[in-house]
């Protein structure tokens, strides 16, 4: 297993280098960080030239990429073109925010996705199964920005009806939040509910379908029939023999999805104004802040690779045949 992990990591390094280079070229070609200055007749040419020089925009793209890569290898992601702030702290801050949004959401989504999928499979063609199917199709096909907008509207209507702000539509917490532990965490929870719900509903929709399909396949397998024929209690058959095997594809999927979500639930974060990885990318792109975009890419690519690896390892853990192979 150790060798397998090392091999996978070795393959991913050139992948990261190539992707960072391509993105650098794309962002560099996408726009001009000094466009606003150039459009302002009051800005002296000398100032624009000085800024170009300061941001190394007067150097060829390849040289600029080399400078960035050299810094990145040493853990220095450079400074934001726009604010002059070091990119490192910005990035870690954004990861923290995204993690706060994702940790609970993914856990709940997995829990509900698996539960709904399993029950739907066990009671195939029942009312529950049809309802679960309908739920899954609706939320699976629903654009997240629209779902977020609907959830916001519902949340505000509830607030208006009760005359108290239970649900918040922007940010991670109220400005200047202070007070008792209960007050602070109830405020944070109020901010978390709607964005988390928009993530959970969509993820549950997808994962429950995978779980249902996988469970159905396993329930019809010979070894499950054998287990039943041996007279094992139904609970034991389902949990130990069926569910464990049926979890394999879902666990893999969840691990890969989690890696992708860590790169930023871009739309959810944008709509709910969470200053996480998604918003970091969007504002970085809007302002042509190449160092920010590059740092985001590096972290995101690493996350995707690591969680793909985690998926492979988990697969091996759940299915001993893979380990032996």
């Amino acid at each position: 297993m150790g060798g397998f992990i090392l091999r996978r990591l070795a393959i991913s390094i050139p992948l990261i280098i190539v992707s960072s280079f391509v993105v650098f070229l794309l962002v560099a070609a996408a726009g001009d960080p000094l466009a606003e200055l150039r459009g302002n007749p009051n800005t002296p040419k000398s100032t624009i030239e000085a800024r170009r020089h300061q941001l190394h925009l007067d150097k060829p793209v390849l040289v600029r990429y080399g400078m960035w890569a050299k810094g990145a290898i040493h853990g220095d992601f450079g400074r934001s073109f726009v604010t002059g702030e070091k990119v490192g702290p910005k990035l870690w801050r954004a990861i923290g925010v995204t993690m706060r949004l994702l940790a609970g959401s993914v856990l709940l989504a997995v829990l509900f996705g698996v539960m709904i999928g399993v029950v739907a499979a066990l009671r195939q063609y029942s009312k529950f199964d049809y309802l679960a199917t309908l739920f899954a199709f609706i939320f699976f096909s629903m654009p997240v920005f629209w779902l977020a907008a609907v959830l916001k509207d519902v949340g505000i209507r509830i607030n208006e009806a009760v005359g108290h702000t239970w649900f918040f539509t922007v940010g991670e917490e109220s400005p200047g939040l202070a007070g008792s532990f209960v007050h602070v965490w109830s405020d944070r929870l109020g901010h978390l509910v709607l964005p988390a719900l928009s993530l959970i509903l969509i993820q549950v929709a997808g994962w429950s379908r995978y779980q249902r399909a996988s469970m159905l396949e396993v329930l019809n397998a010979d070894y499950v029939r054998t287990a039943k024929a041996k007279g094992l209690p139904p609970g034991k058959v389902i949990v130990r023999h069926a569910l464990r095997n049926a979890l394999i594809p879902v666990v893999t999927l969840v691990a890969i999805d989690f890696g992708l979500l860590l790169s930023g639930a871009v739309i959810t974060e944008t709509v709910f104004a969470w200053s996480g990885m998604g918003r970091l990318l969007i504002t970085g792109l809007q302002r042509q802040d190449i160092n920010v975009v590059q740092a985001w890419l590096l972290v995101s690519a690493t996350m995707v690779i690591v969680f793909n690896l985690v998926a492979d390892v988990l697969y091996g853990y759940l299915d001993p045949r893979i380990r032996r192979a």
Partner: protein
Amino acid sequence: MKRKGAFVRRIPRHLRWTVLASVLVLVGGAACGSDHKKNSSANSTSTAAGAVKDGGQIVFGADQEPTGFNIGTSKDNGSSVAVVIRNIWPSAYRVRPDFSLEPYLLDGPATVTSQNPFTVEWKIKQAANWSDGTPVSADDFEYYWQHCNATDKDDDCASTTGYDQITKLEKVDPKTVRTVFKAPFSDYESLFGNLPPSHIAKKTPGAAGWNTTFNDSPMLSAGPYIFESWQKGSTLTIVRNDKWWGPKPHLDKIIYRFLPDSSSQPDALRNNEVNMIYPQPQLDQVNVVKGFPGVTSGISFGPTFEHLTFNFKNQFLALPEVRQAIAYGVDRQAIVTTLMKPFSDKASQLDNRVYVSTQKGYEAHGQDFAKVDVGKAQAALEKAGFKKGGDGIYAKGGKRLQLRLSTTAGNKLREQQGVLIQAQLKAVGIDIRIDNSDNKTLFGTRFPKGDFDIANFAWIGTPFPASSARQLYGTGSASNYGKYTNPAVDDLMNKSLAEVDPTKRTALLNQADTTMWTDLVNLPLYQKPTFIAFSDKYTNIQDNTTTETPFWNVEEWGLKSSAG
């Protein structure tokens, strides 16, 4: 006759739940998307001055996070910084919503003490102190000038205009400054805005002190509010500066909440998560916010104006008759009706390129071209020797009258504008080819190199039109992309820069504008709207479309006495 319930019975039993749930979801969805209740608020940009109580806070939903705080640098010269720093660092003058000026940090207007050499004396308020007790002094004026007079290329200065004309700055006493100019500079009141505390900046010598000292904090205040904290990516808070020399501000605290996705701002306002927003107006949002109960909102027309600039180096556009044909052929009123009237009935075409319509001194000089007149347009072309071809397009010397119209690609409003203009000029017999580029290419390469025929973009009007006009329309100026030149206009603009009497200066500039309507250096279209919305709990908030931003009278803002 179909029996009631027959449809339901035709559905297989195992599918009925699915159908019922679908219907419920659709009904629920429709309910969620239904119209909001109509509010009772007036659609105005200001609240009448009422009884104000002291205390409380306001949360402002800001489009962008500040990039730093020294707004005098090009790095920080944006509205995201302006809405914060104008409450903290003092300016010699304050610009009111009608573009008029009033001394702010100064103890009375700055005085011109000599015409030759042109000398201006500035007296700083005796009571003006920084929040650490250090007086705001001539040192602060000197420091600003030293870093914006274009003598050190390492200084990052957003605008050197005016400062580069000062040959000598004398500190007569700690509270009096005397500036001597190379040549008369009537827009001297534009100088010394948002002065940073020099005694703090000087701790880092040279350009670095100016460029970087205030990246993370404005450090000190000599304004109504003082910086308290900046939670990056989330909020910035300023609190009342009890050491300010002016009247005591009513609100204890102002919080800037960063909501870069402007679509999230209306919901945040409705849900009381922010109390005020000032986004780039988008029609659907404006209409939604107007329906919020307990919210006052309004559209104003700001200093930014759209126009068509003509390239005088183009063989066709060099002919005044072609420019006239375009001015007669472009239906400015139709453009305003299509693109701006949906925002406000008050939208109108702009008939002056030096003053905007909300500015004192505005005179409408474009009346000759107020209404589209295809006949006059074609007559002008025929007078210049053009003949209409079989395809309906005029030609001269075997060359079709084909012109490129260039604007910023991806800007929906301008793209729509381009299509309208193309159709309008086709009716005249002018073939317009849309030739858009991104911002970088347009302003970085094409406009400076003159690689365009007709350019559609925006300029920003200022309370200091003399220096602005010379920059935009003066012979040889880098911003004069169309390479327009008229010595008579240059002369009028130079005279206006030397004229300290505001009435005479306005007359000179309006004379220059009248001449430029004859020359048709460009064709002004309309002013762009601004949009402000705030909770009815607050009073004394009034939009100010200049660089002062709506925060121009922040010390007067407060909660209404009746607010809970």
